[in-house]
């Protein structure tokens, strides 16, 4: 039942996120500016939940698929591709929100396509996928750095995106990104049985009818879909995709079918909580999401690992 209780964190943080903020407590039935701020808080909380859910889905799927406990949603190069898309758009002058988020989405998907192409030529094995992803990430990051240097003083604007935030989410963005995130997460859910069999060993899974090569392609695409959509909404938010599956695993045992729903809910909770905290870190300001998810997630992970040593 321990795992079940953790699900309650999400409505708790969601509700806190609606009540707390620099504007103060808002009477939910008031009209006017207060109602609008409440709507913005709702938008932020929804965006944060969806982004956390998508990243956790992607992280769990990739950790099971690649049998790598350090896998995160960006291991296949999606965030570098998205960052390149965004920086290229900003450098070319397309800086309005819809353009930036579409550039992120397309950049992430393009990076995955490249990684899959390279990895397919090498047999689409786990090792080739990880190597291609890491190599592409480094290559794209170097191009990113060149563009950032070129932007000069305007680089500050792109840094806001690079550190990840849901503060600038728009209903329109969520409208197109949410279905993509949900589709990716649902696809991985449909393959949860296959991924659980994969935990028993490739040959055992194959003997049960799981086609490992095809599964790798499917889960990679599904994870890239939900990750790219999440990055399009909030920028590359780090650490959630790595730590949510871990807390789920430590909280409810190792079987993939059991940890998957829990990791989705924990990912959403963590991101909503981080967004809530980011409003209060600097008086009058805002902290980037990635720094807070890491600051919050790392101690939790260490504590859980220490407790579950035995």
């Amino acid at each position, binding site marked *: *039942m321990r*795992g*079940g*209780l953790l*699900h*309650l964190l*999400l*409505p708790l943080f*969601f*509700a806190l996120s*609606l009540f707390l*903020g*620099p*504007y*103060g407590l808002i009477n*939910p*039935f008031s*009209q*006017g*500016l207060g*109602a*609008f*701020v*409440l*709507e*913005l808080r*709702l938008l932020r909380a*929804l965006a944060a*939940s969806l982004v956390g859910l998508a990243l956790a889905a992607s992280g769990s799927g990739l950790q099971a698929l690649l049998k790598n406990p350090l896998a995160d949603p960006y291991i296949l190069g999606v965030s570098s591709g998205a960052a390149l898309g965004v920086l290229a758009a*900003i450098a070319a002058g397309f*800086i*309005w*929100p819809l353009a930036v988020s579409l550039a992120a989405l397309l950049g992430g998907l393009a990076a995955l396509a490249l990684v899959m192409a390279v990895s397919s030529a090498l047999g689409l094995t786990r090792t080739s996928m990880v190597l291609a992803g890491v190599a592409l990430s480094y290559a794209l990051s170097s191009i990113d750095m060149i563009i950032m*240097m*070129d*932007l*000069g*003083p*305007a680089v*500050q*604007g*792109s*840094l*806001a*995106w690079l550190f990840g*935030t849901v*503060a*600038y989410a*728009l*209903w*329109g963005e969520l409208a197109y990104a949410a279905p993509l995130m949900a589709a990716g997460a649902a696809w991985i859910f449909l393959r949860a049985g296959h991924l659980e069999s994969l935990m028993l060993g490739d040959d055992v899974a194959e003997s049960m009818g799981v086609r490992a090569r095809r599964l790798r392609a499917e889960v990679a695409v599904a994870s890239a879909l939900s990750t790219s959509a999440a990055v399009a909404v909030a920028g590359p938010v780090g650490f959630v995709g790595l730590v949510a599956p871990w807390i789920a695993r430590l909280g409810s045992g190792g079987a993939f079918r059991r940890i998957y*729903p*829990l990791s989705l*809910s924990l990912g959403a909770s963590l991101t909503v909580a981080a967004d809530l905290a980011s*409003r209060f870190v*600097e008086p*009058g*300001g*805002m902290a*980037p999401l990635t720094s807070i998810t890491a600051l919050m997630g790392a101690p939790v992970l260490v504590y859980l690992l220490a407790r579950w040593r035995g």
Partner: protein
Amino acid sequence: MRRKALSSVAASLIVVAVVVAMSAAYIGHQLSAYSAQVSELYSAVSSLNRTVASQASATSSIASQQQSIQSRLSSLESSMRFPASAVDATGQQIVVYSEPTRIVSLMPSDTAILFAVGAGPQVVGVDKYSSWPPCLSALKANGTVKDIGSGWYPNPEVILSARPDIVFGASSVPSNHALKQQFAAYGIPVVLLPDNTIEEVLQSIYTVGRLTGHTGAAQLLAENVTAELSYAEGSTIGLNRTSVALIVWPSPIWVAGNGTWEDQMITAAGGSNAFSKVSGWGPVDPEALLAARPQVIIYTAGHGQLNYTEFMSALYQKLGPAADSVPAIASGRVYAVTGEYNDWLTEPGPFVGYGTILLSVLLHPEAYGMNYTSIPHVVSPGTLRLPVPASVPVISTPRCASAVSSP
């Protein structure tokens, strides 16, 4: 096992149901709130129509006619100012129905323009980097003006907690665009001012004046800035253009290349940009200084954070003995600009005219009857007085309303 499964399924369903219900309730509520607002706006527009119509039908005796004509003129003048419309850098038309009384500014240059056209008393929020006029810090301290944090990475809720009725930002910052779309849903206009060229700076001054009800002052300010620019141009007309490198960051070295307003200022001040091949602001190797051979090097040193001596020693370190082959270094015409002078060269605001005059003094001191050896290496309001005759219009430092003390 089954019970466990059922209860976790139930818990998840409860979570989903709660979230969906809350969102549905709030969204439904907001929709009805918005329809209420729309009908409010509609009645405001129709009442404006009625006001104009009623004013057209006033009659009385000659003396009272004269009085009423005069009062009609002044109220017509104020009602002619509003509703006011202007187009911002995104091409969107912004309509303001009545004089804004709660203005928030996200950029130091916007703040400067607002106060310079006289909209200071209407400002209730500025970003943390705004520093002109000097009494702003006192206003922030006593709470009249709220510090809303960084304009590059603004927190929407903090801005809204200042209850603005209009926000001024910059079109080069992506987060400001996002803010514009967010606030549009509530009807708070976010004006994104363009800032790439001097023409755009003047355009911004007009826009700000129009939307805040200070068209006259904005007109005057724009004319003053233009006059200052002409003064600088006129003083250096016919002189050989001095090649100059304008360094905006020392390490790595970033210069202002072509397509920036600094570049236009250099041209107006009788100089030529040694790095005109660089587009926008860009990094250059120190060796590029050797190739470009500028006659003057100007470096915007902020408000004292960046040190002239450190800059010079860094240059010598990077260039070695070849440093002395650069004409500017050999002749000692390397200037670190600090203090308020620095802002004149780094903010696309109302001081571009003054900044151009400053540049013309540094590039052509002989036009002002000065010798270049008399210009100090650290150029600030305290070390160099600009030889500006009385005929050139000044931008007065506005007094801040209800300021405790002005420095």
